[in-house]
């Protein structure tokens, strides 16, 4: 252990670290904080400039947003929930076995993995048009099914990379032990590896869900009223209410709550998985 002599200097350094942390945390989270605060202010308070800090809170805006009559905000939340969950599950279901095949048997490593990661590099708008037209032909426009499929597509690259990284770290002995007992490939995958993958599955589930929830472009183009997700629904408030910042702020607070909460649990995995998956994959 290195013994440091200059204690007062350390104290200053430590304090300044805290200070920098505080400033950074404040600056990057300013819009979130301001929006949440605005959602509780009375309209008169919101419309005053310069803005007030001490104010009497009100729940009026939340009542306005959640009470049906204006827009169907609760249904937007439901849509985002369904789309996010459905998309994540499908992405996991499809990527998990594929990752196993890639890692353990080298099948598809040379073409599938790069192809899938390529999806992530494309500006997705270039698919927006044909998917719009395709959905129109088969009647999937503005439907849960249609949006779930898109959400799964967007989540697959991330899921695959994470799973590949994870499985590469798993010792081969597991597979061998399974084969000893006469297990088939499928058994090895689902009965041995799957239960061990709980942490990574949770991480992928959370991350895919957050990504789906935050998707805007496809939600904008492919939905009209039935399957409108929260991200698009919240923008209705901005322009349709024009001056009503209060309701807008309430809508947005609700719109960012689920991913924020989930993110608090999932973020430790993101760093590790992304790093190992990307480096080795």
């Amino acid at each position, binding site marked *: 252990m290195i013994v440091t002599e200059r204690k007062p200097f350390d104290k200053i350094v430590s304090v300044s670290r805290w200070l920098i*942390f505080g400033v*950074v945390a404040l600056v990057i989270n300013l819009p979130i904080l*301001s929006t949440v605060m605005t959602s509780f202010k009375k309209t008169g308070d919101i419309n005053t*400039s310069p803005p007030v800090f001490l104010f009497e809170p009100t729940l009026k805006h939340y009542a306005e947003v959640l009470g049906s009559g204006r827009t169907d905000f609760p249904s937007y939340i439901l849509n985002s929930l369904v789309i996010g969950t459905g998309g994540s599950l499908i992405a996991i279901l499809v990527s998990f076995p*594929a990752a196993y095949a890639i890692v353990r048997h080298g099948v598809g490593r040379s073409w599938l993995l790069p192809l899938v990661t390529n999806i992530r590099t494309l500006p997705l708008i270039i698919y*927006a048009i044909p998917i719009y037209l395709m959905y129109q032909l088969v009647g999937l426009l503005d439907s849960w099914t249609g949006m779930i499929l898109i959400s799964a597509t967007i989540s697959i690259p991330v899921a695959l990379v994470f799973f590949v990284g994870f499985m590469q770290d798993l010792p081969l002995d597991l597979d061998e032990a399974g084969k000893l007992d006469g297990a088939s490939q499928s058994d090895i995958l689902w009965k041995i590896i799957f239960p061990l993958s709980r942490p990574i599955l949770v991480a992928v589930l959370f991350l895919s869900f957050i990504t789906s929830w935050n998707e805007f472009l496809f939600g904008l183009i492919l939905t009209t009223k039935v399957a409108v997700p929260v991200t698009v629904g919240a923008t209705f408030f*901005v322009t349709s209410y024009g001056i009503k910042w209060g309701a807008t702020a309430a809508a947005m607070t609700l719109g960012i709550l689920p991913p924020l909460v989930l993110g608090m649990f999932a973020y430790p995995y993101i760093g590790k998985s992304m790093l190992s998956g990307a480096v080795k994959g």
Partner: protein
Amino acid sequence: MSSQIKNCYRGRAVRPLKPQDWCDRLMNLREQERKSARIFLVGMCAFLALILGFPTIANIWFSFNDVTFHNLTGEGYSGLANYREALSNPKLWEALGYSLKFGVICTVFEVGFALLLVFILHPLLLRRPWLTAIIMMPMMVSPALMGVMYRLVLNEFVGIVPGYLDMIGVTMNFLSLKHIQFTVIAIEVLQWTPFAFLILLTARQSLPYDLEEAAAVDGATGMRLNIMVVLPLITPAIIIVSFIRFIDSFRVFDHIFVLTGGGPGNSTTSLSIYIYKLFFKQNDLGPAVALSMTLLIASLALLYFGLKLAVRRNDR
């Protein structure tokens, strides 16, 4: 190897095989496993073929035809006309240039800030890891909603930022032509620096402690440790993060669309916004689709060559 022997000996007396036969048997086994493993890819391939395969084919077809909103099944074969029209429009190249510039600038700032923050905050976060969660918050928010939030926060009359800047005597109009580029870039940087920070922090934290001890013995502590020891070791992570962030910033759409709609005029029209406008604001869908096809081919080509380069480097 021992497991193969175990398998063979199980229950019966067998003569041990020559090494050559072992190799063959191993190969056969692996071949069989490979074949059956291909099934595992079916789900993924089928799904992608369905969702992305058909649109790609449709894209190809539409790009060679005269398609309008009034006649979605095409009015006739038009050959390369769509491609010519799409690629000869100077606005396309402006948008492309804009996206490239935006991507590079944002990436440089994001990775730069992230690196700096990792150096400064690492000891703090080592002791109190939960603090990282607070820094992660912005990246959990939808970029579109983030754009709307900034619209409120930067509003000259009811926004909190101009309000307080006013009190210290600074008037800065964030959405004016002078500052709009700065604003749009700043929003992206502020939201995604945490992502770069997270990856680089993880890389930093995965460095073994013995390293720091050894370096300290040589007199490298604090900033010197960071620059001379840590930095070279986390360089792979820096490259990866830069790559990922560049791609994401290049594709930017959400927060710019919500904040400026691509304006004033066309000054913040990124490539994605340009394609959106081309599709939705004009009757002629052909050029929009032709452009999409071109981009697809371009990015596939780029990745293909990029991979080849990477593989070649690895082989050396």
